[in-house]
């Protein structure tokens, strides 16, 4: 049995259902939100750092994978996010500087908290703490993922599929599908499906929204070995993102998480953190169950 591979690791049903955070009594909704928040930070930080999208995409997949083998109680969204982006920048041969990464995270955290931007004192105590945390996080990711850190991404596949389907020049579909790919990084689809299926799903979804009919006899996706059921499921996960707003006070560090959990029930009761059930039936997509297997 090979332990190392260039292929994407795919989770088992059991791994998906009983995440380490769940075992640590972190509510499912909160885990979902924290995963999304962590990915948001990675994407934004990458943009500020002018990293290529392949680095941000890789980092988000690493981040998602990581929290299927480790608990949010033990590793913070901030640290693993920084570590994942740092590692991914190297994996994608566009290494960023530790110092820049820390400054950007500091800036993004302040912005998220609506605090005035205040640059970190270079080589100050906070800087050093963050640097240590980052380096440790990077090693933890490597270690906990067994060095399987080379992520196959669906971007190239998707562009090729668009070509085959003669959709490259369509007004909205390529843009939309590309956007869905970026957004789907914040869901768990990259740990559930192989890149080809994800590429098909975003095209399927974009075409539906644009009300463009694609060949169905035989169904076009069969050419790329995707299944309708999988595409539907991926689409649900993506649409769900747009239906749920992320609260603005989520915990980024372990200490913050502890406090947050103390008040979690109160918060829910008072409705601050109420999760709206997805309600976008314009596409006949019901609420997303976990992956069907």
């Amino acid at each position, binding site marked *: 049995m090979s332990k190392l591979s260039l292929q994407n690791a795919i989770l088992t049903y059991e791994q998906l259902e009983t995440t380490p955070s769940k075992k640590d009594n972190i509510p499912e909704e909160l885990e979902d939100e924290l995963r999304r928040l962590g990915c948001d930070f990675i994407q934004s930080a990458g943009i500020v750092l002018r990293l290529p999208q392949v680095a941000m995409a890789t980092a988000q997949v690493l981040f998602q994978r990581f929290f299927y083998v480790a608990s949010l109680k033990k590793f913070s969204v901030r640290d693993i996010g920084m570590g994942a982006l740092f590692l991914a920048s190297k994996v*994608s041969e566009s290494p960023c500087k530790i110092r820049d990464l820390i400054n950007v995270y500091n800036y993004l955290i302040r912005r998220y908290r609506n605090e005035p931007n205040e640059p970190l004192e270079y080589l100050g105590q906070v800087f050093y703490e963050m640097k240590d945390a980052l380096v440790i996080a*990077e090693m933890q990711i*490597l270690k906990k993922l067994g060095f399987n850190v080379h992520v196959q991404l669906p971007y190239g596949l998707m562009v090729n599929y668009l070509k085959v389907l003669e959709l490259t020049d369509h007004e909205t579909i390529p843009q939309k599908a590309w956007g869905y790919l970026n957004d789907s990084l914040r869901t768990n689809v990259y740990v559930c499906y192989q890149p080809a299926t994800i590429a098909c799903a975003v095209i399927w979804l974009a075409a539906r929204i644009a009300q463009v009919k694609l060949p169905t006899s035989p169904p076009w996706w069969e050419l790329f070995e995707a299944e309708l059921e999988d595409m539907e499921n991926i689409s649900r996960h993506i649409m769900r993102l747009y239906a749920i707003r992320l609260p603005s006070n989520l915990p980024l560090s372990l200490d913050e998480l502890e406090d947050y959990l103390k008040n979690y029930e109160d918060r829910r009761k008072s409705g601050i953190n109420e999760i709206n059930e997805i309600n976008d039936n314009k596409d006949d997509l019901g609420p997303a169950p976990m992956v069907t297997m």
Partner: protein
Amino acid sequence: MENQGYSPVECIDDNNLEKNNTPEVQLTETPKTKTKKSKWESESDNDSESEQRFSKKRRKKIQDSEVDEHSQPETTESIRRLKVSNEDPFNQSPSTRSISPIAEPINDMSISSTPSPTPESTTQSFEERIIKSTPTPLPPMLTGCRSVDNYEKLNRIEEGAYGVVFRARDKATGEVVALKKLKLDKEKNGFPITSLREVHTLLLAKHPNIVNVREIVVGETLTQIFIVMDFIEHDLKSLMEDMQVPFLQSEVKTIMLQLLSAVAMLHDNWIIHRDLKTSNLLLNNRGQIKVADFGLARKYGSPLGPMTELVVTLWYRAPELLLGTKKYSTAVDMWSVGCIFGELVNKEPLLPGRTEIDQLTKIFKLLGMPNEKIWPGFSKLPHAKNIPFIKQSHNTLRSRFPYLTENGFDLIAKLLTYDPSKRITAEEALKHPYFTESPLPKDPEMFPTWPSKGGGERRKSYTSPSAPNVAHGVEKLDEEDQTLLGSIFENQGGNDYGFRLKI
């Protein structure tokens, strides 16, 4: 909320994404202090133990689900598989992937022995016989690194410049493996990008003549990382030091064919090894060559961007590198292959320079002084003005190899060609008539066996220089580090005689 900041037009495929970025990675690298200290760690790692339990429980399940939905019972030879995966996804033949959810279970037998179905030629049939196939890897489980405690230390094989290599036994299976400990102690920039490349290339480069990596294991602390490889009995350097007589021509051919096959596959996948030398070529007791030590390997983009010039151990370093070119290519590996060829034939290093100038002098004495005519662009290379002028106009290569046939000589001359663009490629070299003339390459199974030094007593350390350690650092990360860099050459472009080494 939708993220539309990235347009498909900007980026055509993932490969291009990578390649577009490659040229921006200016490889200025940080010198790293060498430390000789090394320690075998034997305390257990609680963390990864619990992960182990977790993963064992899952293993059966994962295997099942892989076969069900994600198995790709590839029966094509690994070389072909790699070629396919780097091309347009549409070239991926649907027949190699499972369409039905109930794919045939993966059959080890069918995977392990398929010859490459390329057009027939006599060379090919030798290749087929000489280059044995390896099993195809399955997708990984999402599971952490195991602890090094799963292995029992047997003995230290060799201390390389950057890592220590141990012989060890897998406690569960009894198999003997090699563990290479990565040196991470002094890393300022987290996990070294060179080690990431080493692991990545080894994974990408699954080939019967490239050493097989089994897994990465960790020691007690976060900085103890080991690459677990199949144990290979010999390296060519130590082996030749101990042999009474040189390899036979038939053996040289077999070794060269295997080496060229591995190098051809690497180059085909845009990977340059950058440190080919006899101590990085392993030979097992079944006559199989395994290329090792991908510590300097990297993918290169198209068009070729600037890369660090401080690569390849001195004796095997191509003249364009010695002359400071920033744009080099797979041809640097072919020069090294030429030096290795010469060393195999004569059982002594072909160009054992002591310094870079000495290295150039030795090359010039062997091959004659290069000029614009035989090597266009030569005089414009960064260090071309600072080099010693050797009054040596003609090539003396023939006299170094009195017993080599005309074909053999033709091959080494083509490998040791000054102009990198005219230097023979690995693909071409595989088809060279040298390999089809008598004596024919020896069947690897018929190779003699030698006592394995790594498998027994400690090896004595050898004198061949190591790859420049500058290249092992992390590249271009903190500008504070940049000040430590600078050229190893003083007085660049100044007075003609001012070519001097700092180190």
